[in-house]
């Protein structure tokens, strides 16, 4: 290509540049002739590849073998997965375990022939695997099998040749001497034979020694047979004696066990009899009870039947005697029923009357306490007791009015605190004590001070006292509202035992007069309330009764 391009270039340049080109070419030729370039080494890629491949495979195998010798799992993997791994390992092991030079070690095949070994099997590393053996294939090709005698002769000769200097050790008599004389002579014969083999294996005495050995062995076998026979007879005798003893012991045990079982049998028999007797007694008892019950039932049934018959008989008699004495029996029965109801009503009425009587008695007791003339220190307690009794008596009546009246009564605590109720005489005396106080404040102006009180006290002494009560008429009312008029009317009502009117008059007071009479009003009102409520209960009881 370069040449062509050069020719083309040269052709194009033509004659115009011909002298210049020529001179340059000449210069180049001169320079090439003077400096020779070094020869370039050509590489061989195939050879290089094989070399590298060999090197890598050898190094890999070497590493694998090294690892396989060190570790069993790697060895297994090497044998299983690496081609020719087993052979390589065998080779390496042989090389490492047999450091004898190859020239001195006999090959395996001649050793086989010398030792009269027909065949040897090499056990592979992976273990023994059963394979079919072809005897024909095992024989080397073109060689017929040798007869046994020829093989023996050849082996003895070969052994002699191979192991000329082997000395067989003698047997020791110490172990067998104490046992038997025959063993001793056998050992001696064997030792003689061994000595002869060691000294001169081809001597004629060896045959004699062998015969002697055979004889000794025969004697030994006879002796052994005799001994075994005697041992057998002894053993039979021993067995017979042992069997006799065992039989005797078993018989004695049988007798004992029989006795024991007989005793147990009698005990069990007695127990069973006892149980049976108890069961029989229970059954007899239950049967007797059943019989009694059946008899009782039968008797009851007979009674019922008899009663039924009697009833039918009586009914037939009644039916037959309807026109006679028993004609009015039903009327009599109805009248008796009415009488019974009447008696029940009467009993209820009697109960009510008794209750009403008790109530009246209680009410009369309370009235008596309220109208006492002489003051009693236990009036409060007596009054509370009677009121409680009255409450208990009226509760079963379930009368709303009575219950409300009792609930409106002053409580027991109030009565006990105030000491019950005051008598008429007590009320009059307290009023008389209150009158001078009322007079002293009768002239007080509204919101009076010290001067007003002093003046009222002074001028109250100058007032005229009044008495009696004016007659109230439709035309004119002469009742005054001053304190003296009120005092006179209250006195009048108190004397006449008109407590409610007197209270009304006192309650009409105003100012300090009303305030001073407050306690008297409370006491009088309490007595009046009690009187009124007791009268109410009494009248209600009269209405109920």
């Amino acid at each position, binding site marked *: 290509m370069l040449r062509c391009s050069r020719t083309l270039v040269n052709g194009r340049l033509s004659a115009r540049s011909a002298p210049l080109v020529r001179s340059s070419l000449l210069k180049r030729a001169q320079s090439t002739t003077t400096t020779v370039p070094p020869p370039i080494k050509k590489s061989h890629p195939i050879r290089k590849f094989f070399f590298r491949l060999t090197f890598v495979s050898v190094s890999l195998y070497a590493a694998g073998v090294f690892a396989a010798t060190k570790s069993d799992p790697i060895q297994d993997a090497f044998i299983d997965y690496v081609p020719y791994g087993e052979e390589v390992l065998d080779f390496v092991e042989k090389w490492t375990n047999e450091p004898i030079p190859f020239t001195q070690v006999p090959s395996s095949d001649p050793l086989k022939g010398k030792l009269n070994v027909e065949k040897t099997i090499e056990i592979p590393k992976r273990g023994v695997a059963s394979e079919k053996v072809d005897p024909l294939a095992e024989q080397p090709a073109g060689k017929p099998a040798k007869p046994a005698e020829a093989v023996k002769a050849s082996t003895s000769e070969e052994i002699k040749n191979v192991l000329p200097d082997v000395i067989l050790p003698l047997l020791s008599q110490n172990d067998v001497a104490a046992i038997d004389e025959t063993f001793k002579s056998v050992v001696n014969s064997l030792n003689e034979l061994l000595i002869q083999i060691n000294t001169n294996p081809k001597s004629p005495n060896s045959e004699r020694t062998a015969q002697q050995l055979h004889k000794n062995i025969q004697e030994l076998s006879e002796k052994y047979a005799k001994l075994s026979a005697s041992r057998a007879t002894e053993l039979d005798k021993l067995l017979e004696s042992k069997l006799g003893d065992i039989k005797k012991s078993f018989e004695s045990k049988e007798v004992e066990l029989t006795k024991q079982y007989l005793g147990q049998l009698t005990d069990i028999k007695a127990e069973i009899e006892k149980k049976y007797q108890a069961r029989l007694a229970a059954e007899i008892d239950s049967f007797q009870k059943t019989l009694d019950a059946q008899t009782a039932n039968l008797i009851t049934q007979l009674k019922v039947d008899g009663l039924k018959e009697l009833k039918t008989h009586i009914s037939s008699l009644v039916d037959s005697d309807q026109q006679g004495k028993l004609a009015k029996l039903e009327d009599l029965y109805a009248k008796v029923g009415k009488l019974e109801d009447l008696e029940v009503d009467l009993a209820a009425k009697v109960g009510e009357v008794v209750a009403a009587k008790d109530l009246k008695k209680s009410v009369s007791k309370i009235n008596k306490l309220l109208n006492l003339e002489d003051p009693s220190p236990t009036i409060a307690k007596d009054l509370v007791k009677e009121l409680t009794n009255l409450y208990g008596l009226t509760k079963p009546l379930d009368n709303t009015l009575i219950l409300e009246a009792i609930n409106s009564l002053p409580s027991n605590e109030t009565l006990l605190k105030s000491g019950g109720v005051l008598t008429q005489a007590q009320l009059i005396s307290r009023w008389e004590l209150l009158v001078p*106080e009322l007079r*002293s404040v009768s002239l007080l102006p*509204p919101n009076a*001070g010290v001067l007003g009180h002093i003046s009222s006290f002074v001028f109250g002494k100058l007032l005229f006292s009044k008495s009696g009560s004016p007659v109230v008429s439709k035309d004119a009312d002469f009742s005054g509202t001053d304190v003296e008029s009120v005092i006179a009317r209250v006195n009048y009502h108190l004397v006449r035992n008109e407590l409610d009117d007197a209270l009304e008059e006192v309650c009409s007071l105003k100012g*300090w007069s009303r305030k001073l009479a407050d*306690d008297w009003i409370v006491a009088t009102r309490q007595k009046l309330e009690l009187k009124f409520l007791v009268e109410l209960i009494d009248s209600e009881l009269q209405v109920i009764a």
Partner: protein
Amino acid sequence: MSTQALTTPSKSLLNDKWDVVLSNTIVKTGLGFCGGVILSALLKRRTFPVWLGIGFGLGRGYSEGDAIFRSSAGLREIKA
């Protein structure tokens, strides 16, 4: 106080008031007298400070008694 008022009978309400007023007046008059005596001693034993003190005491007692009597509010308005 309330228990005492409750236990006091209504009849003696005014008497109790009188007791309080009179005792108060005596105490105040006594105090005025004492003050007057002291002032009299200071004023070269003149008697008028004593009478003046007694008068002040009486006046004070009277005014307080008046208030005590008038202070019972509602007494005249009780309805039966």
